[in-house]
């Protein structure tokens, strides 16, 4: 997968999931990828590499910040943290997504019409 769009993920979906994951705790890229894979039950089939362009976009927008640190396995890793702006952005995006999802669900719901 090159970008979210090509797998049917809507633009911004990956970023939203990253922000949500980082809200729980700061993580480095590899751990972030594993966490998203695990929690999504691998349903999304995200290529691990596709996280990095998304992380760069978030860095550029200053929604996350990154610092070099040491991982639990004693590796030098870059640890990403949610910024205040990132938290706000996440909230906004999630509420937008929920509305969208609700709309879609209503349309798809059987029985009515």
């Amino acid at each position, binding site marked *: 997968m090159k*970008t979210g769009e090509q797998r049917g993920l809507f633009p911004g979906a990956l970023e939203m999931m990253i922000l949500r994951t980082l809200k729980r705790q700061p993580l*480095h*890229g*590899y751990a972030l990828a594993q966490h998203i894979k695990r929690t999504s039950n691998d349903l999304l089939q995200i290529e691990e*590499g*596709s996280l*990095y362009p998304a992380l760069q976009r978030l*860095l550029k927008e200053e929604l996350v910040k990154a610092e070099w640190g040491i991982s639990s396995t004693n590796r030098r890793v870059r640890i990403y943290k949610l910024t205040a702006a990132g938290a706000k952005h996440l909230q906004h995006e999630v509420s937008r997504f929920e509305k969208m999802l609700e709309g879609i669900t209503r349309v798809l719901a059987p029985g009515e019409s």
Partner: protein
Amino acid sequence: MRWLTQLFWRRRVYGHLSQEIREHLEQKIEELVASGMPRKEATYVARREFGNVTLTEEDSRKVWRWPSIEEFLTDIRFGLRILRKNPGFAAVAVLTLALGIGANTAMFSVVYGALLSPLPYPNSEQLVMVWSKVNGHRNAVCAADFLEWKRQNSAFQDVVAWSEGTFSLSVSGNPESMQVRIPSPGFFNLQGIPLALGRDFVPEEGEAGRNHVVIMAHRLWHERFGSDPHIIGQQVRLNAEPYTVVGVLAAGMPDRFEAHLFVPLVLRPDQINHQFHWLTVMGRLKPGVTLQQANADMEAVTRRIAETYPVSNKGWGASVEPLKNNFTSRETIKDLWLLMGAVGFVLLIACVNVANLLLARATIRQKEVALRASLGATRGQLFSQFLTESLALALVGGALGVGLAWMLLKAIVVLLPQYSVPTEADIRLNLPVLLFSLAATILAGVLCGCAPSWQISHRNLSNALKEGGRYASSAGRQGLRRTLVVLEFALALTLLAGAGLVIHSFWKLTRVNLGFREDHLLTFSLPLRVERFVQPEQITIVLPPGTRED
């Protein structure tokens, strides 16, 4: 300032990125190995789950870039590198394009200088020619009409009239026949031509007896008077009479006038009539007055004159016309544009030629393209890369072309027949011309790059890889190349036919029967003062040996 910090941080960002991705892969491999997978397989799995590493890095970097410009520059650099690798191909293509662009730049300099550029006068759009008009044709102006116009009009800041003459200028005993313009006082002020020394004629110098004053062009002052800084107030001999120098024009445009000497126009009482049309009249419109308003004003003025002098002036009106291109015939304008079209064709032919060369070379680069595509280059990227290569080619060609145009212009300015372009026209490489060249260059690059680039980026790539380096040429490309050759021939034939027709009419012109043998015949005129040579017997013509007087 954010972009500036970004620029400096970018290299670090890129470094972080590569390191981070490396760590990511290693960590994954370690974990897989720890779970019991052989290292080799673990490496393979890690890479597969990660995806295309190069592409990921590229996409991540792209976030920090101003994408199009930087990609364009990278492509240009790459294009130039490819060109350096193939000097023979590059030389042929660049020279072909240089010829096309050079010819176009040179021709456009002429067209721009002669037809398009604003005239080199302050507020030049206010400058108009005022002609007498009879039966719809323009005519020179008679002195009495000019004086009436000057008095009665309300559209002009000022109007001036002039005639031309030939005077004999003597400097230290060497007489030389000079063309002289004889304008009414205020001529230079009206046009806004600056003087390097002295002043414009004052109104009193338009009266008989006060008119022995002269203004000269900068070039004449330089060539005949050694740029004498004390020339104002000195006397020169014109037609054997003393004239006081009152002004020297600033260097530049006035040096291109036919006349380099100016004496004031005096209207003698016997010349002030409504019959003899001999003056050329120029005016400067008042600010905000349009051509239509000026024409309406002059119509009222001429109608009043015609009512007062019905015998001479019935049917005579006036026509106010922009100065710009007023002295350039329709024929000349048409010819200039035709020539521009012809060199445009030359550039098109050059483009088709280079396009064909590029296509031929694309065959050789099939494998490279297939490899790039399999490494993740999109069609768009391939297309833009090849297009940029041809643009790089065109840019080098364009730079050479401008140099070529510079040399061509030196010849053109000398060879250009007199009066074929306005005297004000400054034919040289200036900013608008260079912008035109840049546009022509980019157009050429796109024109000759489009077809090959499209071909390259839309080919069935797996075939190219399978063929394993054998240079197969598909039927489609052959078709395109054939089309280009046909196009090139069509263009060249059109050009050839046009050139042939011009040469044919020129040849016919040289064979028109004039009714006499024109070879070995000379004609010349000798300006003489009627006052000094009253009787024809006073004139002796000394002919060079071998010349016979018929």
